[in-house]
């Protein structure tokens, strides 16, 4: 490793290059600086030295020296608070824009020492205590703003144990990313007339799989068609009504037919349709410029569609 690289300042904040492998915290990854309280402690020592000096009092000197020595020794203890811990990346789940992406991190303490008050921070800090020879599984969250891949960034593990005079921290970057789907559009809108789909599929079922309205729930309606939102709002139980034979209906969700001023709005609309369609249990085909997915239903299909939307 080159000298310049060894002393990169950014290592202090964002840590070493992102890795996939477990990371053992050692002297290269652990940094220590006094906290504000630590600086206050230094001030205390200076004051004690001054008292000792003015009164020429050897025991006051001794107390000042003892505290100075405690301050010094605490550096080693601070280092011990993190050293030897093993960090390993776990899974991450896909989310919609605006939600917080969660990343699983496993922190293993292979030593016989208890680790107190560890703070794990991505955006918000969480604290935990690790028993000797144990592993903690935690999920750190980071808010998403854009669809596509969302990098986890730097996970910082820190501690002020034992005296709070020093903060010891270790920034770690993993190759952790979460897929972020577009934000589903707010407004509920009927599924589109899909002429292109009909042409492709050769199915002529005019208005058949079109959502055309809501009607009061009657026994026998599929649970999948219940308009849960309205129910949640306390408006009563309604069923979504679709034309034609509901179970065998197919719709086409096409980028070209999605309303919107720009591509993001269209994607957002499409996303909403995908979510709604999946919820409603309708078989839906999916088309983006350069990508066409035949009609389908179920989690795998759903995820495929959303993934395509996220990465478009």
């Amino acid at each position, binding site marked *: 490793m080159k000298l310049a690289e060894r002393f990169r300042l950014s290592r202090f904040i964002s840590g070493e290059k992102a890795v996939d492998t477990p990371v053992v915290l050692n002297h290269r990854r652990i940094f220590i600086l006094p906290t504000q309280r630590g600086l206050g402690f230094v001030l205390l020592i200076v004051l004690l030295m001054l008292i000792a000096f003015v*009164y020429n009092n050897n025991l*006051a000197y001794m107390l000042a020296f*003892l505290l*100075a020595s405690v301050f010094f020794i605490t550096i080693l*203890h601070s280092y011990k608070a993190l*050293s030897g811990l093993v960090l390993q990346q776990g899974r991450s789940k896909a989310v919609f824009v605006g939600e917080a992406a969660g990343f699983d991190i496993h922190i293993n303490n292979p030593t016989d020492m208890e680790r*107190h008050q560890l703070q794990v921070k991505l955006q918000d800090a969480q604290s935990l205590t690790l028993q000797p020879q144990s592993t903690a599984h935690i999920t750190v969250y980071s808010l998403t703003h854009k669809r596509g891949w969302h990098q986890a960034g730097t996970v910082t593990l820190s501690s002020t144990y034992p005296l*709070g005079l020093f903060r010891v921290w270790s920034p770690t970057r993993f190759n952790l990313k979460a897929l972020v789907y577009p934000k589903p559009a707010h407004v509920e809108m009927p599924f589109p007339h899909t002429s292109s789909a009909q042409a492709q599929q050769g199915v002529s079922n005019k208005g058949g799989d079109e959502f055309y309205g809501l009607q009061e729930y009657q026994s026998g309606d599929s649970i999948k068609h219940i308009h849960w939102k309205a129910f949640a709002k306390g408006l009563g139980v309604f069923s979504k009504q679709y034309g034609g034979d509901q179970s065998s209906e197919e719709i086409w969700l096409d980028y070209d037919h999605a309303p919107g001023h720009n591509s993001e709005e269209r994607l957002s609309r499409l996303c909403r349709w995908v979510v709604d369609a999946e919820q409603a249990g309708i078989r839906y085909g999916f088309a983006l410029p350069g990508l066409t997915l035949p009609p389908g239903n179920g989690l795998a299909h759903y995820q495929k569609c959303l993934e395509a939307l996220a990465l478009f």
Partner: protein
Amino acid sequence: MKPELDKNILIFLLSSIGLIVFPHIYHIPAAVFGFFCLLLSWRFVGVWKPNWLPGKLAILLLAVSGIGLLYSQHQGLFGRDAGTNLFIIALGLKLLEIKTERDLYLINYLAFIVAASQFLYEQSILMAAYILLVCCVLLATLVYINSSKAQTLAAVKTAVIITVQALPIAVALFVLFPRLEAPKWMLFNDSHRAETGLSDSMEPGSISDLGESFELVFRVKFAGPIPPPQQRYWRGPVLSYTDGKRWTQATLQKPSRKPAVAGTSYQYTLLMEPQDKNWVFALDMPQEFSAPLTLNAGYQLITSERTDQRAEYKVTSYPDYNTGPINSGEYKAATQLPGEPSDKIKQLVGQLHGFDSAPDNFINQLLNHFRTEDFHYTLTPPVMEENPIESFLFKTRYGFCSHYASAFVYLMRVAHIPARVVTGYQGGELNKVGGFLEIRQADAHAWAEVWLENRGWVRVDPTAAIAPERIEREINIDRQTAYGIASANNYLPRPAYNWLKQARQLWGNVDYNWQRWVINYDNKSQSNFLSSFGINDVKTMIYWMIAVIASITAVLCWFLLYQKPKAADKVVLIYNRFCKKLVKHELIRGAGEGVKDFSERVKIKLPVQAEQIDQITSLFIKLRYGRMASEEDLQQLKTLVGLFKS
């Protein structure tokens, strides 16, 4: 972060603060101490009844009354007492206003300062040990705040461990940190010196009870043999002038020449305890000494240094001396009488041949008079307001050293023999463990000095003439043992007495070394001590300090951080090295990827090294998961990985 006001933390912190302030009960005004106790107990109640704590306005009022209290004590803002009061009151007020963790820290730091102020009043070993313990508790509070679980014992244990580990470096700093004398303007004028001890005047009749204090006055360590008890007279102020009741120092002309000395000499080091006078008690007759000591007209050593701290002096004395001729001023002062003596006195002097024989003879006659007549030695004589000397000689005949010395000197003067009273200390107990003498307030003594032709000033101790059976019991046994006129075994069973004495001497020795090497370690003794190691200037001192601290740190690092890697971990470490080599070929083992799968992937990319890769993989599996792995396998894996070319 924990809830801000964890009950346990508060109880812990408040108790340790109580412990820290408690010894100040002797040092600060009762009002200040009471005020602090009020605040502390209020806070204690507040732990369980948070609603009872004062509001903002009440705290302001309390602060104002605290300032008023400080002001009423008339101690100003600076100086030891004022500073201590200020910090204690500030600490008390801050206690009522704990909101965040930051406040806990502030209180903790204030408590450390109050702990340090304790040392400005008392520097004994016991106090040092006490404060050390309390400091551990304070540190434990910090550990407690920073650890996750409410484990008081664990926090205390951690704090003690840290403190113990910190001690070596603290000691190194103590020895090697350059000591500088504070400039004079920085010294605050505090009148906190010892109140007991010898005074510069003597009034035998008015005191009816001599305090028997075992407080230490000074210690003496002899370079050679220790003088016999009858020569251990530690000279203090010389009292020449009397008004009949009271004896005081007369202003004397300094003798023109030093006393002639002969015979054996005693070299010794005096370690004076803090006192309010600038007197140094040397063995009769001090001959060699160095600045800041000077000899005054009464052959008493005077120091020009501050004496509110322990000080060490090197002196050489000769018990055999001759002060030579008397000068006129001395003669005048030594024959001064407060008026015409009464007929009764004159009759007594005449009867003892004071007017018609040589001074020697008269002295012996007088001492014999004390011995044969019904004189008693007691520490609780009756008060003699009027004519104390006459009352003592003819009526009460009960007295202690001052009575005998003053009566003796008075009678000498009536017989026209120059005489004066010398005060000081007599005897001293030998500490067998440390080989030094301890002189205590109870050893205070007064004796007489007469001037004789060709012999100069000669010491006469009339108290020694009292017959032993007439000595009352309460007096200092040790001193009488030194005189050879009383023996200890009359009072205590011998083994118990010996055991007690030994224990006292052992403790005395520890205390002596503590005073000498810890309390009294100043820039002078530091340079003396360090020059014996060849460290002569501040620069070398600092180099040494850094070197010593660095080596202690290295040892501590090893002790604290080194962990023997487990065999299994070694295997993983070696395998990781192998993986690192493959990173260049963009072969990165996935998080959940098995070793075997990984090796297959590697072999496709690096077909040439397939055999090596297989060997490494199988060895790794054997070492990590197999049962029959041996040390050789580990070595082989090491070599293979080392040889593996990427």
